[in-house]
């Protein structure tokens, strides 16, 4: 089923690979010493690279992915970026999904009543706000966006999509005879929502979650690349930002490519897993027997 889906397996493999990277980061720094620390660690021992006019060196035995203009080990930054991508992606997705599922369940179950209107109109209002410009404005006003703030804001904007989908699903489920049967048996609304409807809706929520992770990673990278990200965190987006800011875009491809691939591959991995999951979710819904 899930295992038979080749794309899903590719997604899982990539995911596990990057998970390994994320967890390996601190160990690597432990192994190699402080000069390899992703934020602030520098290795000037190699001297200035005449081709880049900085401490940026292409990959070597000492530095598997090379160094950046300050002499920081890029591999270490890459590992750290992986960790941050997971952190950002999953925390945003989890928060948005949980919020979205709960809101969707409530909204869908009481569809047509005031609570549904309240939630849906709030959702509409949020959606009508142009998200990226808002982020940039906040970043400009506050200085730069602390990671936590960024995560919170993204959560607030991402729950809407999940909520809509879950609400639609809930609306269709609540007219099913087994829900009536539960009600006739005396089940309270909360029992119906959490025991009868929620389990049928969670798989869909999970699917939405995987989609959000990819979006969150890409958004963060974009924000950081534009210079509005959290400067205290060396995320992949930050790496690209530094590289271009230092003028090394074409001079040091080994600096640009790892974060680029990281962003692309990891988001794609989540997307593939979500896609494979979708195939489980849908036939389950369609199959009646």
């Amino acid at each position, binding site marked *: 089923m899930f295992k038979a889906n080749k794309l899903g397996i590719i997604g899982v493999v990539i995911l596990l690979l990057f998970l390994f990277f994320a967890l390996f980061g601190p160990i690597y720094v432990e192994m190699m010493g402080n000069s390899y620390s992703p934020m602030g660690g520098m290795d000037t021992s190699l001297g200035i690279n005449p081709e880049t006019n900085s401490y940026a060196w292409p990959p070597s035995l000492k530095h598997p992915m090379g160094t950046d203009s300050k002499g920081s080990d890029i591999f270490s930054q890459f590992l750290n970026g992986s960790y941050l991508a997971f952190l950002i992606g999953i925390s945003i997705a989890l928060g948005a999904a949980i919020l979205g599922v709960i809101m969707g369940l409530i909204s869908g179950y009481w*569809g*047509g*009543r005031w609570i549904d209107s309240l939630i849906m109109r709030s959702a509409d209002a949020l959606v009508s706000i142009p998200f990226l410009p808002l982020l940039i404005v906040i970043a400009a006003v506050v200085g730069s966006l602390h990671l936590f703030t960024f995560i919170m804001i993204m959560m607030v904007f991402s729950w809407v999509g999940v909520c809509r989908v879950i609400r639609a699903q809930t609306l269709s489920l*609540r*007219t*099913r*005879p*087994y829900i*009536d*049967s*539960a*009600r*006739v*048996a*005396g*089940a*309270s609304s909360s*029992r119906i929502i959490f025991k*009868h409807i929620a*389990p*049928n809706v969670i798989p869909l929520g999970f699917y939405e979650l995987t989609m959000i992770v990819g979006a969150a990673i890409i958004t963060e990278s974009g924000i950081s690349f534009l210079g509005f990200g959290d400067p205290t965190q060396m995320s992949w987006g930050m790496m690209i930002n530094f590289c271009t800011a230092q003028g090394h875009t074409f001079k040091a491809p080994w600096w640009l490519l790892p974060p680029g691939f990281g962003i692309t591959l990891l988001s794609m991995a989540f997307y593939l897993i979500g896609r494979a999951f979708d195939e489980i979710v849908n036939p389950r819904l369609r*199959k*009646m*027997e």
Partner: protein
Amino acid sequence: MANLFEVRGLKKYFPVGTNLQFVNLKMFHFQMKQRVFTKEEEWVRAVDGVSFKVDDREVFGLVGESGCGKTTIGRLIVKLMEPTEGDIYLDGKNIVKLSKNELKDFRKNVGMIFQDPYDSLNPRFTILESVKEPLDIHRIGEREDRIKKVVSILKEVGLNPEKSFLKRYPHELSGGQRQRVAIARTLIVNPKMVIADEPCSMLDVSIRAETMKMMIKLKEEFGLSILYITHDISEARNVTDSMAVMYLGKIVESGRTDDIIENPSHPYSKALISVVPDIDPDIKRGKIELLGGVPSSSNIPKGCRFNPRCPYAMDICREKEPDYIRVEKDHIASCHLL
């Protein structure tokens, strides 16, 4: 025999254009507020003044074609929706307005079996979980007792070997077996009354008879009454003690089943009986031709609502709704011809 259950003057109107799917969820609270602006004619009069009584240990049939309001009555009785007007009495107590606690108690007393065995059990619950749920909801007995109760009721509904069904899922069972599970789930709290809404219409013919027989057996054992809703009048004949024939939201004839089948008095009942095909090729059935199709419940004809299709319609039928005439003991019908 005591009157267990009574319905008086029950009415259920929906504003035209209501999405009937959402009705039972009180969604049309909003639309009800529009009532002030809605004209009398723009209501779907699904149930238009229905009264009947069900005795203790009786199987009472509600028979009619789709759209006659019988399913709506079932849903009103189990309080999946509220009536527009009218009273419902269970054991002498009016159940239309109940407090939260009274409602929970009520749910133990009236159960329902649904038409679709393929969708009336939660596909993610095991049989054990589905049948045990009413006990959990009403906190009956201790954990261990509950499982024992489930096993015992599965035996009663003929699911053998009981223990093997506990961990299975609905999709592993056949339609007939699922319906038995639904019945078990309803009976496990020992209700006084069960509404059966077309319980056999989605089952194979050979399974129907078994299911009907089982329901009658359980009715005796558990001492309950059944309101049996069906469009199949031959099914009603074989399983009900008394019945009511419905047309467009009203009862046109009611009484003891045998009396009605032998001596149908309302032209609609006569027509309904005459169109049932017979497996015996030598039986010639007297066909009664009805003109036209069933009108919509939002546009109920003036006078006797059956008059446009009635082959015997007279002038008075187009003007005045007929009263209920007593045809014989316990047998009434509403028709100007009587």
